[in-house]
C-alpha cells in the first residue's frame, strides 16, 4: 500500500492508483474534462493539474500515480488560476453557441465554465471552419465543437473496435473525422452512439427525431402508438432527479398518454415474443440439429451492423428473430390494427429506445416493413423522450402511474432483463430449458451471465445436456468470442459455445448510446439492478408464461417459427462493405 497526503488528509491506496482516484477516496474532487472513468487517461486538457510539495511542476492528477509520502495539493489560488486559463484557452477555439447546442445544460465544458465563473475569454477567438455531418441519420458530428479530448476516438477504436472515428492532421488543425474526407454514412460507423454518450461537449450527439414525433402527434389523421424499451424505464429518471435504477414504468406510460399517444405498448412484450421465437430457434438448432450452432443473438442493431461489416462469415449463426421493438411495430400495424379496426396506414409507431442504432434499424432492410408499411416509424432515444416530456408540460416528478395497453404491453420478468448484458441469454435459457424439459425450472436465475465483466463464459445443464454459453458486451470484447468459434470451425474441433449473446454497448442497453449522459460502471450496475429487481418482484418471470403472448399465438400467429411468425417476426442479413468510399 502507498501512504500519502492529499490536502493534508492522509490516504492509503494500492500502488499505481492515480492522484485523481486517490483524491476521491478522501472526498476531494479534482475537476476533469478529457478524462472519463471508462477510458484510460489521455492527459489532453490539463484541467486536473495539482501540485506536489517539493516540486515546482504541476502534474496531471488523471495520469500521475500517487507515490509513497507524497504531499499533494489539489487546490490553491495558482492552481485554480491555471485551471481557469485552461478553460479560457479551450473557449478561444470553441463556439459560443451554448443556447442552441444539443448539449445545452448537459455539457461538461459548460458546467466547468459555470463552476469557474468564466465571464470572458481574454484570447483571440478562432473557430475552425468544419462542416456538420448528419449523413447517417443517427449520430451527428459537429467537429467545430470538438475540444480534442480524444474520448470518442478511444471509445470508437478501443472499446468498440469499429475505427470509424480518428484524429486527422495534427496540432492546431487536429480534427475528428472518419478516415479521409468522407461522411459518417460512408464510414464503418455502426451507430452504437457510444461516442455521443462519452463526448463531453456538443461535438457528437443523437440525430433529433422529436420534431417528427410532435408532428405525427399533432396530425389528426394519424393514430400514434408508442412503446418503451426495457432499459429506458430505469434510466429516464436520471433526467428528472431520480436515483439511477429507479423503475418508472407506470409514470412513463402516464406521461406518454398525456402527450397524445393513443396506445401505450411495451417493448418488454416484444422481448418476450423475441424469446419465444429465439428459444424455439435454439431448440431447433441444439436439440434437433436443424441449423448452425452456436446461435448468436441479434436484438442489438449496432451488433448486427458490426457483424454484417466485419464478421460476414457469421451470418448463418445469427438468430433470424427481429429485435423486440421491430416485432411490436410489425404487430401494431397488423394484429392491433385489425383487432381495433384501424387503417394500418394511419398507425404511426414510435419507439423509445436507449439506443441510437435503432434509428438506423427501422429501415435496415425490407423486412422492417413486414406489415406492408415501415413497421416502426421513428425511434427516439431516452434523452429525446426526456426533452419531449419537458416540452409537453407534464410534471413527471409528481405524475401518478398508469397501466399500459395490454394487447402489446404485458410482460414478464424475462422481458424486462433484456436491457442488461446477459439478460437476453438468461431470458432465453428460462424458456429454452422449459421447451426441452417440459418442466418448470426450479431456479430461474442464471447468475453467471449477469454482471459487467466484458466476456462471460459458462456451462449449464439442460436435461442432461451441457449447454456452453458466452455473453459479450462492448464490441471489442466480441472478437475473442468470435475468434474462438472461427478457429474451432476451421480446425473441425468441438464448438466452444452453443449460444452467444452480444450487446454492442458496455453493460448492455442500460449503458446504451442514447441513454442519459455521464455513464460509468457504477451507473450501469445501478441501472441493471433496477431491472433485475423488477424481474424478482414479478409473478411471471418466463416469456412463455406471458398471457398476452400466448393469446397472440392462439389468435393470430399460430405457432413459433410458423409461416406468419416467419413473415412478421424474422429477418435476413447480408455482408456489407466496411467503407462505402
Amino acid at each position, binding site marked *: 500500500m502507498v501512504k500519502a497526503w492529499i490536502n493534508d488528509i492522509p490516504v492509503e491506496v494500492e500502488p499505481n492508483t492515480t492522484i485523481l482516484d486517490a483524491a476521491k477516496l478522501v472526498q476531494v474532487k479534482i475537476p476533469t474534462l478529457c478524462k472519463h472513468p471508462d477510458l484510460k487517461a489521455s492527459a489532453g486538457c490539463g484541467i486536473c493539474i495539482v501540485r506536489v510539495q517539493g516540486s515546482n511542476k504541476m502534474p496531471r492528477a488523471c495520469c500521475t500515480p500517487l507515490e509513497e509520502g507524497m504531499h499533494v495539493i489539489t487546490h490553491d489560488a495558482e492552481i485554480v488560476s491555471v485551471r481557469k486559463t485552461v478553460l479560457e484557452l479551450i473557449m478561444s477555439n470553441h463556439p459560443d453557441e451554448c443556447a442552441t447546442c444539443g448539449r445545452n445544460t448537459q455539457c461538461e465544458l459548460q458546467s466547468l465554465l459555470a463552476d469557474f465563473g468564466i465571464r470572458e475569454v481574454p484570447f483571440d477567438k478562432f473557430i475552425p471552419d468544419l462542416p456538420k455531418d448528419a449523413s447517417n441519420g443517427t449520430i451527428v458530428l459537429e467537429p467545430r465543437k470538438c475540444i480534442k479530448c480524444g474520448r470518442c476516438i478511444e471509445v470508437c477504436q478501443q472499446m468498440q473496435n469499429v*475505427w470509424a472515428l*480518428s*484524429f*486527422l492532421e495534427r496540432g492546431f488543425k487536429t480534427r475528428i473525422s472518419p*478516415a479521409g474526407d468522407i461522411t459518417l454514412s460512408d464510414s464503418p460507423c455502426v451507430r452504437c452512439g457510444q461516442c455521443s454518450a462519452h463526448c463531453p461537449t456538443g461535438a457528437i450527439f443523437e440525430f433529433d427525431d422529436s420534431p417528427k414525433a410532435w408532428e405525427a402527434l399533432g396530425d389528426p389523421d394519424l393514430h400514434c402508438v408508442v412503446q418503451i424499451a426495457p432499459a429506458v424505464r430505469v434510466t429516464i429518471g436520471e433526467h428528472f432527479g431520480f436515483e439511477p435504477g429507479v423503475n418508472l414504468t407506470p409514470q412513463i406510460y402516464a406521461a406518454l398518454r398525456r402527450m397524445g399517444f393513443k396506445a401505450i405498448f411495451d417493448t418488454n412484450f416484444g422481448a418476450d415474443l423475441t424469446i419465444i421465437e429465439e428459444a424455439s430457434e435454439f431448440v431447433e438448432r441444439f436439440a434437433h440439429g436443424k441449423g448452425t450452432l452456436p446461435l448468436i443473438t441479434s436484438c442489438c442493431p449496432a451488433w448486427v451492423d458490426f457483424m454484417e461489416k466485419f464478421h460476414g462469415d457469421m451470418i448463418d449463426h445469427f438468430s433470424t428473430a427481429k429485435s423486440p421493438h421491430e416485432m411490436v411495430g410489425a404487430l401494431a400495424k397488423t394484429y392491433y390494427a385489425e383487432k381495433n379496426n384501424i387503417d394500418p396506414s394511419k398507425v404511426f409507431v414510435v419507439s423509445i429506445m436507449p439506443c441510437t442504432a435503432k434509428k438506423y434499424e427501422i429501415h435496415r432492410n425490407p423486412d422492417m416493413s413486414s406489415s406492408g408499411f415501415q413497421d416502426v416509424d421513428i425511434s427516439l432515444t431516452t434523452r429525446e423522450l426526456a426533452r419531449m416530456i419537458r416540452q409537453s408540460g407534464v410534471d413527471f416528478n409528481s405524475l401518478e402511474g398508469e397501466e399500459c395497453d395490454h394487447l402489446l404491453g404485458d410482460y414478464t420478468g424475462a422481458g424486462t432483463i433484456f436491457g442488461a448484458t446477459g439478460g437476453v441469454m438468461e431470458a432465453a435459457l428460462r424458456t429454452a430449458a422449459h421447451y426441452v424439459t417440459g418442466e418448470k425450472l426450479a431456479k430461474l436465475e442464471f447468475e453467471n451471465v449477469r454482471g459487467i465483466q466484458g466476456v462471460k463464459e459458462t456451462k449449464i445443464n439442460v436435461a442432461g445436456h451441457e449447454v456452453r454459453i458466452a455473453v459479450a458486451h462492448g464490441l471489442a470484447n466480441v472478437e475473442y468470442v468470435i475468434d474462438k468459434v472461427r478457429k474451432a470451425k476451421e480446425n473441425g474441433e468441438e464448438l466452444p459455445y452453443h449460444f452467444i449473446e452480444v450487446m454492442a454497448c458496455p453493460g448492455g442497453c442500460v449503458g446504451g448510446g442514447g441513454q442519459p449522459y455521464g455513464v460509468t460502471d457504477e451507473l450501469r450496475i445501478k441501472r441493471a439492478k433496477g431491472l433485475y429487481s423488477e424481474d424478482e418482484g414479478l409473478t411471471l418471470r418466463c416469456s412463455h408464461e406471458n398471457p398476452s403472448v400466448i393469446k397472440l399465438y392462439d389468435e393470430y400467429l399460430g405457432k413459433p417459427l410458423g409461416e406468419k411468425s416467419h413473415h412478421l417476426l424474422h429477418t435476413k442479413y447480408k455482408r456489407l462493405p*466496411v467503407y462505402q468510399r
Partner: protein
Amino acid sequence: MDQEQLRKEVDEIVKPWEGKEGNLIMVLHQIQNRYSYVPRDISFEVAKRLNVPLARIYEVITFYNYFKLEAPGKNIVSVCLGTACYLKGAPKLIDEIEKQIGVKPGETTPDGQFHVQAVRCLGCCGLAPVITVGQKVYSAVKPEQVAGILAEYSEPATAAAAS
C-alpha cells in the same frame, strides 16, 4: 491501375516489412516515394495486408507533412519560409505565385502543372529568398522574376520566352 496490378505493387512494397514492428510508416514512405502520394485504393490494400484499420493509416498520413493524399502537380514549386528567406521577402513571392497561377501553398493548379508548397529552411540561407522548382534552385528571387521562372515550366513550351 487495375485491381490486380495494384495488389501486385502493394505486395512488392509490403512483403519485406511484413510482421515487423513499425512497418506501417516504412511502407507508407515507399508508397509516397513511388507514387508521389498515397492513393486511397492503395491505403485500402495496405490496410488489408498489414491488418491495420484504415483510420490508423489516415492518422499517420495526415500527421506527417511528408505524406500527401492527392497527386501532386507535375512541377513542385517550393518557397522557403525559413527565417532568412522570410525576412528577405519570401511572403511576397508566395503572393506573386498566387497572382500568376492562382494557387496558394498546399494547392495544385487545376491543370496539374504546378503544385505550390511552403517549406522551412532549404539550407542555403545565403541565397535567400529561395524558390525551388523540382530539383532546380532559384536564388535571391524578386517578385518580378516569378513569372519568368514559372514560364520555364509551363506548357506549351513558352519556356523559350523566358530563357
